[in-house]
């Protein structure tokens, strides 16, 4: 596939442990699978984990900070995924401090990546410190990962505020397109009123919904093995991620009523049976 106009997507949340890296890996792998040349960049300097989630931890030699500081060139630091020829990762450094990410340095690396890749997925660290701010500063679009839980929703609201005010696009008077991705969702608990529902979260955060990823054993299974969820075996989480990404790409996804039917049929164990 020929390279389209390059797009920078940040995966962010404010709160830690909600599924940013899982989502970055799933998103990167699925985009690559669809033929888009994609790179996933780990912005979590000092606490890199994307390499582990994507299963290339033993192949890291040079990292993002090495490239910024001129100790290595981009091609030396990029790791090509062994499963997908369109998928690359740029790992974060494990040791250096966060101040290594300068605006100029990050911009230079991203501009170089834009020449080569259709999608640049920026995996943000938690918090609203330097690493997180740098991950979102140059973004065209943002996936805000939120758990249906009070602290996660509050932090997502904070990060939406940051996306509205402290990005390059905001400074230029335009805006970053924001998408809400609800992860670790338990439909039946929400129905019983024990968990914030999709509608609750959406109403509070007031940004368009991209998708809902159910709480799933497939996520831990995938991370245990270093396989992005979207490259793993069939699972509810994989299907939900694929739907969300199709939606992100502007494809029409099956309607909720169709999903309802599928869920009912799946519940009867007639369809969607896992081959494993």
């Amino acid at each position, binding site marked *: 596939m020929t390279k389209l106009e390059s797009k920078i997507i940040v995966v962010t949340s404010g709160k830690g442990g909600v599924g940013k890296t899982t989502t970055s890996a799933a998103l990167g792998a699925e985009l690559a699978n669809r033929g888009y040349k994609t790179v996933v960049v780990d912005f979590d300097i000092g606490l890199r984990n994307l390499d582990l989630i994507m299963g290339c931890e033993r192949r890291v030699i040079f990292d993002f900070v090495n490239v910024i500081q001129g100790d290595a060139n981009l091609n030396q630091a990029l790791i090509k995924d062994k499963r997908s020829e369109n998928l690359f990762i740029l790992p974060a450094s494990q040791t250096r401090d966060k101040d290594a990410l300068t605006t100029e340095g990050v911009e230079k690396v991203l501009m170089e990546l834009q020449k080569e890749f259709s999608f640049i997925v920026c995996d943000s660290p938690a918090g*609203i410190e330097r690493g997180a701010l740098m991950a979102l500063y140059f973004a065209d679009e943002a996936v805000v990962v939120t758990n249906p*839980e*009070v602290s996660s*929703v*509050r932090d997502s*609201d*904070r990060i*939406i*505020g*940051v996306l*509205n*005010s*402290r990005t390059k696009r905001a400074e230029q008077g335009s805006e970053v397109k924001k998408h809400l991705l609800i992860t670790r969702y338990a439909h039946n608990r*929400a129905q*019983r*009123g*024990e*968990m*914030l*529902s999709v509608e*609750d979260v959406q109403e*509070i955060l*007031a940004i368009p919904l991209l998708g809902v990823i159910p709480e799933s054993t497939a996520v831990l299974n995938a991370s245990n093995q270093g396989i992005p969820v979207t490259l793993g075996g069939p699972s509810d989480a994989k299907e939900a991620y694929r739907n969300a990404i199709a939606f992100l790409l502007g494809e029409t996804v099956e309607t909720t009523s169709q999903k309802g039917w599928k869920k009912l049929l799946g519940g009867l164990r007639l369809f969607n049976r896992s081959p494993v």
Partner: protein
Amino acid sequence: MSIFKKLLALNANRKSAKVARERLQIVVSHQRSEGGDAEFLPKLRHELLTVICKYVKVDKDQVNVQLQRMNNCSVLELNITLPASELEQGYEQVRIL
């Protein structure tokens, strides 16, 4: 535990999402009214105060600067309470939206 108590406990759990939603609505609206992440707000407040003080003697606490985030725009709200002695009309509030 009596059946009645068990039922009460069950009922309390069932409503927890509603409680969460209400708490979040309050905390989020407060967060947004604080201006969230507009770093310039304290500085803006300070500079406004300096300018206003050139003309009217106002109390430091009487200048209220808020930035509210709506769906697709932000509203900067300045609320300045002028003391009665400074203006002949008496107590006056200047509100710029």
